[in-house]
């Protein structure tokens, strides 16, 4: 354990500072190239640079490569490869909006390195009861996990700072769970997820100076998914992102199909003082934000903090689940 402390501190520092230092430069480049989008939740409709994905992937690659020097494990290569493919899928979607199926399919392709490298277990770890082996389902489950985590994180990237702040909390939960399940090396490999998200949150929080874009959100979501797979904590990881799962579940059960979020009616509207309120549009989807503001208008910042409270609640349930997985009956 003591010989793992130095790599842990080193990769955390590299992940944090590479994003923290590179973002101001990226903002300037994006502004110069006029790669900005309107922030519709601001009264003056301020233009915000997008995407922040390149800085995020840079931080992940730099930190994971350094970690690979300390622990040359195939799981780290799987994290690097899958996350990089997810980033490329996001870049393509940032450049040109594609159909609702593009991202799930692209992220399914991103699972290929995990399968080819054999960086997964054919069993699933369940709380209380132990392991179960379903050989026919092990690969389909992997193919589903990355599209689910990637799109789930992308779907909550609707307000300033929410996606990155949410990933800090979910990342802490999964890392602690990996320590509880004594999977120390993968726990250290998941530290860059926390610190990259934390550094990005500094610029993404309300009022945002940069948006992650699909390239940023899919990268964070796919990294979360691949850590869940290679760390063998798939069920535990699902609990940590329950607020985002609720959002996707509400969306899909109201829309009854997979659809690109830019193609739907806005589930919230603005009051005169520019708070967010639930829309009265009958064919607008039901989302987490729409439910949060159902009882009355709230500011963007208040909604963001409410989502963080939900994430902390889920993180608490995640830790309990991790202990339940360790203790067998």
């Amino acid at each position: 354990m003591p010989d793992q402390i130095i790599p842990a501190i080193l990769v955390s520092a590299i992940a944090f500072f590479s994003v923290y230092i590179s973002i101001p430069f990226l903002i300037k480049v994006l502004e110069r190239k006029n790669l900005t989008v309107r922030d519709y939740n601001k009264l003056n409709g301020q233009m915000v640079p997008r995407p922040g994905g390149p800085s995020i992937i840079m931080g992940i690659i730099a930190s994971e490569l350094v970690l690979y020097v300390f622990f040359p494990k195939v799981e780290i290569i799987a994290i690097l490869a899958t996350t990089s493919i997810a980033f490329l899928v996001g870049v393509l979607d940032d450049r040109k909006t594609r159909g609702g199926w593009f991202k799930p399919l692209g992220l399914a392709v991103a699972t290929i390195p995990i399968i080819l490298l054999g960086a997964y277990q054919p069993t699933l770890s369940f709380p209380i009861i132990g392991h179960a082996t379903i050989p026919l389902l092990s690969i389909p489950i992997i193919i589903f996990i990355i599209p689910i985590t990637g799109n789930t994180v992308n779907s909550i990237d609707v307000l300033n700072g929410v996606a990155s702040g949410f990933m800090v909390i979910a990342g802490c939960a999964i890392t602690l769970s990996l320590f509880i399940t004594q999977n120390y090396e993968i726990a250290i490999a998941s530290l860059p997820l926390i610190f990259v998200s934390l550094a990005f949150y500094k610029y993404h929080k309300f009022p945002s100076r940069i948006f992650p874009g699909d390239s940023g959100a899919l990268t964070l979501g796919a990294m979360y998914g691949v850590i869940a797979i290679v760390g063998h904590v798939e069920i535990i990881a699902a609990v940590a992102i329950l607020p985002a799962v609720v959002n996707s579940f509400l969306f899909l059960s109201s829309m009854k199909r997979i659809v690109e979020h830019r193609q739907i009616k806005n589930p919230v509207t603005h009051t005169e003082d520019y708070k967010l309120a639930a829309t009265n549009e009958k064919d607008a989807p039901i989302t987490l934000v729409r439910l949060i503001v159902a009882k009355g208008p709230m500011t963007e910042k208040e909604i963001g903090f409410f989502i963080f409270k939900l994430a902390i609640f889920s993180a608490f349930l995640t830790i309990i689940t991790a202990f339940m997985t360790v203790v067998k009956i």
Partner: protein
Amino acid sequence: MKGSQIFLFIFIMWILIIAGCVLLVTISESIKIQGYLTLEPPLFYSSIVKAIIAITFVAIWVYVLSKIKNWIFRRQIKH
């Protein structure tokens, strides 16, 4: 508390995950299919049965969750 139904919904989701996992493992691990005509691998058949049970569990989970969602958020999601 404002939005307390959302916390309740997340908690119920968690309970359903734990309960579903315990049931799934208990049922699927009890399935042992003996060799068929001595030619086919029994693991393959038991895996098919386990896969069907697991997929059925997920379908039931989604159905129950959507009913609970309608019950908890009946006021908010009424158009």
